[in-house]
């Protein structure tokens, strides 16, 4: 029994319990200490992930490989950065309670389990461990009607998605006789007859996972939850869980179901194209910037899934590179959104950004960089993310998908530009407050990555290459 492989997850779970106990007992406010402890635990887990050996554990339920390492590091970094953003915001909004970082910690543990899952059972456990804390923190601002609504909506729809996933899992188990990925891969090896039950089960599994990644047509919860939840929670939702969900989709489809690609490829092509189209068109009319980011994230998932849909190694590498760049752009953007407050009160309309170019040139510059990057304008990092998935699509002969991709990125260009327009071309009477140093640090770090990625792209692409090699063998 090689349980040491799962040390990162074990560390997170144990430190979660320890932090919980030590925060409950003292009488005074422990929110700040709790946040710091959680960030520390996340960093510790990241170190362990980097030192992790490769192999499987827990009777094949758990796998540690370079792909998992790549994705886990992304998730941990995303979670830590968004927690850093939350500290100050929660304090000002009187939301500072130690439960918030703890729930985020447990959700992160769930993500790690998902990424390392090598069995449909482990997938389900990880997914639920991720989802339950997310339902709670969506409604974390419990006195606010919108936040409560967001939590409830997410819970009801999320439960439905979990049900779909479970139903799909049971169908696959019933027809293939196992839930273990390695055994499933053998059962579906080329030459074996594919029963309709497996295909139906596979579609249900994809539906359940697509819900977590908020891909069309399972995206309906995204705008409402993003808008209703407190901004740091939205930042958390948009970053780490999305990466984990995409990682899981990649692992499931290129692992046990790799030889069934005839069956799932059309589904993914459709999901990818529909996500890109909806993400770009529906965002045009939005006035709330969090809603805008929700649609934008739907669109980005569409681009990322394009790489998987074309079913090539280059494509999967494109997915990984895309998700890494997406995560960093997104954290930076939300750093700006978190710092949007006027006379101490949080605001979240696009028009509230008016005149930012004059009042806070630094913040406005970073935000402009993030928006141009999300729109995919070179020389910023976002362009390279798109470049790799488009290349994969062209290479695999899916010109129509690449055409939809470039078309929607022009439409997307419009609404990202609108944000820049509001910041630089409009003027305002009431300036926003200055961002706090911690938030400014996250902004600058993420912004510099976006600007400088062009100079030294090799490490990220090399790491992604390594991860893909491990995945497809």
């Amino acid at each position, binding site marked *: 029994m090689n349980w040491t492989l799962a040390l990162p997850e074990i560390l997170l779970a144990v430190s979660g319990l320890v932090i919980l106990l030590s925060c409950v007992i003292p009488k005074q406010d422990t929110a700040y200490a709790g946040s710091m402890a959680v960030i520390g635990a996340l960093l510790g887990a990241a170190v362990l992930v980097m030192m992790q050996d490769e192999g499987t554990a827990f009777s094949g339920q758990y796998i540690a490989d370079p792909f998992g390492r790549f994705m886990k590091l992304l998730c941990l970094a995303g979670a830590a950065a968004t927690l850093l953003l939350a500290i100050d915001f929660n304090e000002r909004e009187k939301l500072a309670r130690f439960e918030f970082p703890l729930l985020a910690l447990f959700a992160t543990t769930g993500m790690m389990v998902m990424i390392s899952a090598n069995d449909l059972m482990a997938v389900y456990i990880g997914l639920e461990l991720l989802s339950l804390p997310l339902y709670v923190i969506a409604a974390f601002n419990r006195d606010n009607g919108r936040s409560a609504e967001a939590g409830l909506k997410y819970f009801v729809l999320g439960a439905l998605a979990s049900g779909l996933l479970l139903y799909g899992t049971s169908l696959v188990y019933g027809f293939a006789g196992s839930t273990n990925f390695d055994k499933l891969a053998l059962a579906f090896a080329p030459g074996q007859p594919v029963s309709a039950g497996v295909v139906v089960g596979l579609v249900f599994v994809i539906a359940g996972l697509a819900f977590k990644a908020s891909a069309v047509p399972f995206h309906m919860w995204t705008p409402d939850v993003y808008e209703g939840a407190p901004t740091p929670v939205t930042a958390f939702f948009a970053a780490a869980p999305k990466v984990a969900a995409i990682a899981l989709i990649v692992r499931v489809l290129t692992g046990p179901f790799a030889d069934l690609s005839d069956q799932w490829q059309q589904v993914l092509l459709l999901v990818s194209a529909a996500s890109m189209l909806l993400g770009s068109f529906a965002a045009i009319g939005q006035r709330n910037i969090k809603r805008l980011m929700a649609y934008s994230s739907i669109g980005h998932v569409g681009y990322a899934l394009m790489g998987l849909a074309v079913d090539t190694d280059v494509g999967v590498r494109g997915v990984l590179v895309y998700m890494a760049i997406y995560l960093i752009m997104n954290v930076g953007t939300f750093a700006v959104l978190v710092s949007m407050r006027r006379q101490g009160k949080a605001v979240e309309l696009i028009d509230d950004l008016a005149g930012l*170019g*004059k009042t806070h*040139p630094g913040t406005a510059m970073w935000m402009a960089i993030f928006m*141009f990057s999300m729109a995919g*304008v*070179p*020389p910023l990092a976002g*362009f390279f993310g798109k*470049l790799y998935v*488009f*290349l994969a699509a*062209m*290479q695999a002969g899916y*010109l129509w998908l*690449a*055409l939809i991709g*470039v*078309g929607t*990125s*022009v439409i997307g*260009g*419009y609404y990202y*530009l609108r944000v*820049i*327009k509001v910041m*630089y*071309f409009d003027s305002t009477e009431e300036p926003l407050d200055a961002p706090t140093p911690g938030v400014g640090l996250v902004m600058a770090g993420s912004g510099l990555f976006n600007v400088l990625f*062009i100079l030294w*792209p*090799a490490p990220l*692409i*090399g790491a992604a*290459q390594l991860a893909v090699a491990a995945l497809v063998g």
Partner: protein
Amino acid sequence: MNPGFPLLSLLTFLPLVGAAIILSVRGEEKVVAQNARWTALWTSLIVFLLSLALWFGFDKSSADFQFTEEVDWLPDFGIGYHMGVDGLSVLFVLLSTALTPLCILASWESIGTRVREYMISFLVLETMMVGMFCALDLVLFYVFFEGVLIPMFLIIGVWGGPRRVYAAMKFFLYTLAGSVLMLLAILWLWYNAGTTDIPELFAYEVPRAVQTWLFFAFLASFAVKVPMWPVHTWLPDAHVEAPTAGSVILAGVLLKMGAYGFLRFSLPLLPFASAEYAPLIFTLSVVAVIYTSLVALAQQDMKKLIAYSSVAHMGIVTLGIFTFTPQGLSGAIFTMLAHGVVSGALFLCVGVVYDRVHSREIARYGGVAKVMPGYAVLFMLFTMASVGLPGTANFVGEFLVIIAAWKVNPWVAAGGASGMILGACYMLYLYRRVIFGKLEKPDLKVLLDLSPREYVVFAPLVVLTIWMGIYPSSFLSFFEASVAALLARHEAALNVAKLAGM
């Protein structure tokens, strides 16, 4: 210049250093503004002086790429950082580096708000322009080609006129929509040829069936940028709303990117499609020349008039390129350079009176010659140059293009030549309404003639205009070898196919 010295990279990225210095300046707004102006001016002047090394060090007898630099960038993908210039591009690099300091000088007083950001935008813009003309890798080229949009979008949108938001958005989205199709073409070339290195790609033969598709993908991007009729509509808006210096760069350099793209990619990489669709380009070009000239005649706004005249002149350029003759290509390149100087100067002329009266409406003016004689003389010179008077810059290029077009098809030549006649109509009509006539409006009577700073801005443009008109061969000699090599390769590609009986 010793070999191995990264001159082109220095030219490309030195402006960014200047921008970083400006960005780091803190203090009172006035001081920062003044600092930004001087830093930007010095940076651009140093870049210009360095770029003179290209003028003196360039080997005119060779059609090869010179001053090349090569560094691995993304070895897994076969993408390298590859820079170099040949005869087709070297003068455009010089044009970019020469116009930038003039633009900064021209914005010295007219830009009063957010000077720091303005100067940073201009320096970033210079980096992108120079980089684009030097790039010898398709992906690198695309990065610079698109990167130009960011600073230009901000320049139009922040410091522009009343409808600046509309103009900036239109400019950005039009150009982006065109260039993403080019991106797909680049991706196709990338994975089929296995490289994005431009000199290596010249050796790759694109299958004939695909050439048409790639040609139209490139055309979508370049036609918007040139701009060719009927996708020119973003240009008048962008020109009218942009600040003076923005218009100068737009007309002087950005419009040349599209035509340069035809020369660099469409002709050498896609010889069949280029030959096959030349009639289409001729038609669009002739329509552009005649139609936009007529539209220019009806304009009430000075900048709009000159913007439409730019479309007409660029029509001559595309006409020349697709004649596939040495005269046509040389004429086209020469017209591009001349147009860069002359229309840039014309926009500066409009800027001079706009700074004083704050109106671009032609009817607001009249009789300006009486109070601004020096200005009237300069405006006269550039008007004549724009019309194509012999002895000025535009004449040489347009004349060569018309000769080349005559060889291909007299009707096309007649269409192109009619543009020169119409050009005389609208430019002289503009000049008469602004400069001559009775000086009646009270606020015009107190106008001051050009300031020493404005003379400094105009002086190099005057010299260039006359130099190019009187002794064109000092410019033509730069690209003769490259044009000949390009055409030889084009002929060879077509002949091989003929021999193979296709």
